[in-house]
C-alpha cells in the first residue's frame, strides 16, 4: 500500500485549448511575442517567468480580457472569436485574481453564490417575487455552493463578511467562487502570492484536490518555483514576452535558457 506518485494515473485528455502564434501589443510595447502552446484536458499547466515576462497578459489573453493583435485561440477544436468577458465565462472559464477581487461587504456564502450567476436563468419577475423557478434554482445553486464550501473547508466562515477575513482565507474564497461556476478551465493568477508556508501548503492541496476530484483543467501563474514544480504537469516559461521553454517540470528545470533567465547569464 503505497501512495502512487505518477501523474499518469490521472486522466489527461486531448488538447482543450490551443494558442497559436499569439502576439499582443500595447502601443509600442510588445507584451507577448509570437507564443504558441496548448492546454490539455485535465492537466495542471503552469506559466512561469521573471517579473514583467508577460505572464499576466498571457492569462488575460486566455480569459479573453485582452484580444491579441495576431494569432488564434482554439477552444475544443473551434476557433474562438473575440469575445466579451461574460461570453468567455459562459464558455466555461473562471479565474481568480492576483489582487483579490471579492465583494468585501458581502458574506462568504453570497460571494461564492455570485459565481453561480451564470447558472441562474429564471426570468426577472420570478426572481423579484422569489417564486417558482427562481426559488428552485436558488436551492440547487446553494446545494452546489455548499459542496464547494465543504470541499475547501470554510464552513466556519460561511456567514462572515469577506472584509473581515485574513488574506489567506480570502484567496480560498476566491478559489471557491471560481469553482462555483463549474469551469472547464480554471485560471489562477498567483494563487500563493503573499502567503505563509502553511497557507501555501493548504492551497497546494486544494489545487491538487480540485484537479483530482472535479477533473478541472487548471492554468496557473506562480512565482514560487517549488510550488510550480511540485504541482504542474507541464510548464511554459516566458521571458520578455517570448516563450523560452515548455515541457515537464524536469525538462524545464534543466533547460539552459530557463536557468539563465532566472539566474542571469554568465558573461565571461
Amino acid at each position, binding site marked *: 500500500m503505497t501512495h502512487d506518485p505518477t501523474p499518469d494515473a490521472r486522466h489527461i485528455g486531448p488538447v482543450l485549448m490551443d494558442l497559436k502564434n499569439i502576439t499582443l501589443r500595447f502601443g509600442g510595447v510588445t507584451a507577448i511575442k509570437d507564443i504558441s502552446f496548448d492546454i490539455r484536458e485535465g492537466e495542471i499547466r503552469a506559466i512561469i517567468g521573471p517579473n514583467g515576462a508577460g505572464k499576466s497578459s498571457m492569462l488575460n489573453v486566455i480569459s479573453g480580457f485582452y484580444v491579441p493583435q495576431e494569432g488564434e485561440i482554439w477552444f475544443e477544436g473551434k476557433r474562438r472569436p473575440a469575445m466579451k468577458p461574460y461570453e468567455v465565462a459562459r464558455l466555461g472559464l473562471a479565474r481568480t485574481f492576483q489582487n483579490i477581487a471579492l465583494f468585501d461587504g458581502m458574506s462568504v456564502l453570497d460571494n461564492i453564490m455570485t459565481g453561480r450567476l451564470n447558472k441562474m436563468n429564471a426570468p426577472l419577475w420570478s426572481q423579484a417575487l422569489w417564486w417558482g423557478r427562481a426559488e428552485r434554482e436558488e436551492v440547487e445553486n446553494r446545494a452546489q455552493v455548499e459542496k464547494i464550501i465543504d470541499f475547501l473547508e470554510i*464552513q466556519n466562515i460561511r456567514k462572515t463578511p469577506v472584509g473581515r477575513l485574513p488574506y489567506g482565507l480570502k484567496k480560498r474564497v476566491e478559489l471557491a467562487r471560481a469553482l462555483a461556476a463549474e469551469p472547464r478551465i480554471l485560471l489562477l493568477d498567483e494563487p500563493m502570492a503573499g502567503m505563509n508556508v502553511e497557507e501555501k501548503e493548504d492551497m497546494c492541496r486544494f489545487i491538487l484536490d480540485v484537479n483530482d476530484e472535479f477533473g478541472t483543467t487548471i492554468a496557473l501563474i506562480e512565482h514560487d518555483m517549488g510550488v510550480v514544480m511540485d504541482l504542474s504537469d507541464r510548464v511554459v516559461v516566458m521571458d520578455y514576452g517570448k516563450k523560452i521553454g515548455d515541457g515537464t517540470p524536469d525538462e524545464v528545470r534543466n533547460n539552459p535558457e530557463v536557468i539563465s533567465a532566472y539566474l542571469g547569464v554568465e558573461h565571461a
Partner: protein
Amino acid sequence: MQNQPDRSGPPSIPALLARNAATWGQRPAYREKEFGIWQSWTWAQAAEEIRALALGFLHMGLAPGDHVAIIGRNRPAHYWSMVAAQMCGAVPVPLYQDAVVEEMAYVLGHCGARFVVCGDQEQVDKVLEVGAGAPKIEQIIYTDKRGMRKYDHSAMNALADVQAEGRAAHQRHEEELDRRIAALGYDDTCVMLYTSGTTGKPKGVVLSNRNIIETARNTCAFDRLTEAEEVLAYLPMAWVGDFIFSVGQAYWAGFTVNCPESAQTMMTDLREIGPTYFFAPPRVFEGQLTSVMIRMEDAGRIKRGLFHHAMNLARRIGPDLLDGKPVGLLDRLRYALGDLLVYGPLKNTLGYSRIRVGYTAGEAIGPEIFDFYRSLGINLKQLYGQTEASVFITQQPDGQVRSDTVGVPSPGVELKIADSGEVFYRSPGTFVEYFNNAESTASTKDAEGWVATGDAGFFEEGSGHLRIIDRAKDVGRMADGRMFAPKYVENKLKFYPNILEAVVFGAGRGMCTAFINIDLTAVGNWAERNNIAYASYQELAGHPQVYAAIREHVEAVNESVAADPMLSGCQIHRFLVLHKELDPDDGEMTRTRKVRRNIIAEKYADLIAALYDGSEQVSTRTEVTYEDGRKGEIRATLRIEDARTFPTAEPQRVAAE
C-alpha cells in the same frame, strides 16, 4: 458471573440498537450538519446503515475478537463503525485523531488492529506511515473520499462502498451476522479505550457490555435522561466520556446524538442544536466566560451597566432559584426581568437555552466560573470519574451542587479512602482488564475489585460529598516535611483568566516555585485596551506589566493558601512566565491537556535550577514541534520574580467555653 444481564434487558450495544429501532423507529438517532444543513437519521435508518456496514465488514473478513481502530472526528459514520464492529464480534478501538504518527503506531501495534477506519486522507496517511509498526493492519476504510483517488486501493475502501457491498451481499452473510449478534454476551468486550498516558505508555482499558450498559442505566436514572435529550458529540471519540455519553447513554435512553460540521463550527452548531444534556471540560466553560466578559468590556456603557447589574442579582439569587430554595417575590420578579433582558439572550447566544443537565469534569473548575453558569439558571454539575470506571465514580445530585466537591458516589459505586488518603472505588463499571498487561491490571485492581484512583481525597463531614485534593503520587513532602500538593495551588492560579496553565515545583525542596503560562486571549485583550504593543507571544509573556499582573495573582493565591494550615507550605516564593505555551505536540501535556510534570521538569531543568539558585534571569533554548511534525527552536531570556508570602493562619479554634 453469568453472561447475561441481571435483569432481563439487551446484553449488548447491537441488541440495544435493535430495541431502539423497534421502540423509537421514527425518532432521530443521529444528526450531522453537512453542506450547511442538519442531516438526520432515525433509529430505524441508523440500524439499517449500521447493519449494512457490519455486512460489509463481514464480507471483508472481519473475525470475532479482531480489533477495529477508528480514527476520526465525531461523525455518525464513525459511531456506526463501532457498533458494526461489535455486531461482527470485533472490538472497536477509537483513537485520538490529533495523535502524531509515533503515538498512533504504538496503539495500533499494541491492539493489533486488522481493520482501521479513518476519517479522511490525513488519517490514512498517518496509518500508512505507521506501516511496519503495525504489521497486522489488513484493511483501511475511509469516510471522506476527497484526495483518496490516487491511492493504491488493493487494501483500501471507502466506507460508503463497504456499505454498498454489504447490502449487495446481504443474502450471503445475513445468517452469520445474526448468529454473531446473538452470541454477544453481557461480559463480552464492548470497547477498548486507551488511557491518555499521563505517565508512561498508554494502556488499553477493556470495558465489557456489562460495564457500559449498567453504568448507562444507573446514570440515566440518576439524571432522569429520556429519549428526548439532545447531546452534541464534539469531544474526542477516543475519550471514555464520549463513548458513555454518545453511545452508552444514548443507546440506553434512546436520545439524539448531534455531530458538528467541523471542529471550528462547534460553537455555532451548539447554538443551533441547543442541547438539553451537555458535557464540557472546564476549559470550554472558562473560554466561553472569558469571551463573554471580553465582549462586555468592549460594549457600550448602558449595555455594560445593565449586564453587570443583572449579573449581580443573578449571583445573589440565581443558584438558590436553581436549587429550589425560598426566594422573595420581589427578587423573583427582578430575576424574571433579568431573564427577559440579559440571561435569556445570553444563554441563547451560548447555546444553553434548553440545557437541563450539564456536567463538567476532568479538572477543577473555578468557583466564579461555576457560579456564573449556575446563576444564569444552567444546571451545571460536577462529576468525578476515570476511564477504568466507565467514567462515573461520583456526581452531584440536583440541589446539592458546589464548586469545591465532586459529589456523592454514583448509583452502584462503593467508595473507600485508604490510610494514605487515596480514593478507592468498586462499581459495575469497573473495567475488565488492561489489554495484554496483566501486571498493570493486578497492580490497579485488587482481587475484590477495588480500584485505586490515584487521587487523594476525603469525604466532607456533614454532606458526605467527596473532595479531591490532588493526584496521590503528586502529593509529596517538602524538605521540612510539610505537605506539598501542587495541583491544589495550580488550580487556584488557573482560576485567574490571565493564567492558562501553571506548574508548581517544591517536592523535597525548601520552598515552592512556579512556571506560569499566560492566556493569550485574555492577556492579549488586556494589552490592547492598555495600549501595550507586542509582536509575539514571547514578548507579551515577558512584558513587565504582565509580570506585575501575574505577581498580584500569585500573591493573592499565596494569601488564600496560607489560610489553610495543612497546605500553607505550598506558597509560591518565586515564579517565571514561560515563553511558550505548554503543548501536547511537545509532549508537555497529554492529549486531554493534563500537565506531564516529570517531562516538564526534565525539559526545563535549567529554568527550575534558576528558580532555586536565586538568579534574576535565565537564558534558555527550547525545542518546539510544529503541527506538521517538524522541529524548531525558541531562544529566550526569562525574568524570575519573587512573590510575597504570608504567615500561616492559626488553626481556627472552635468557639467553646
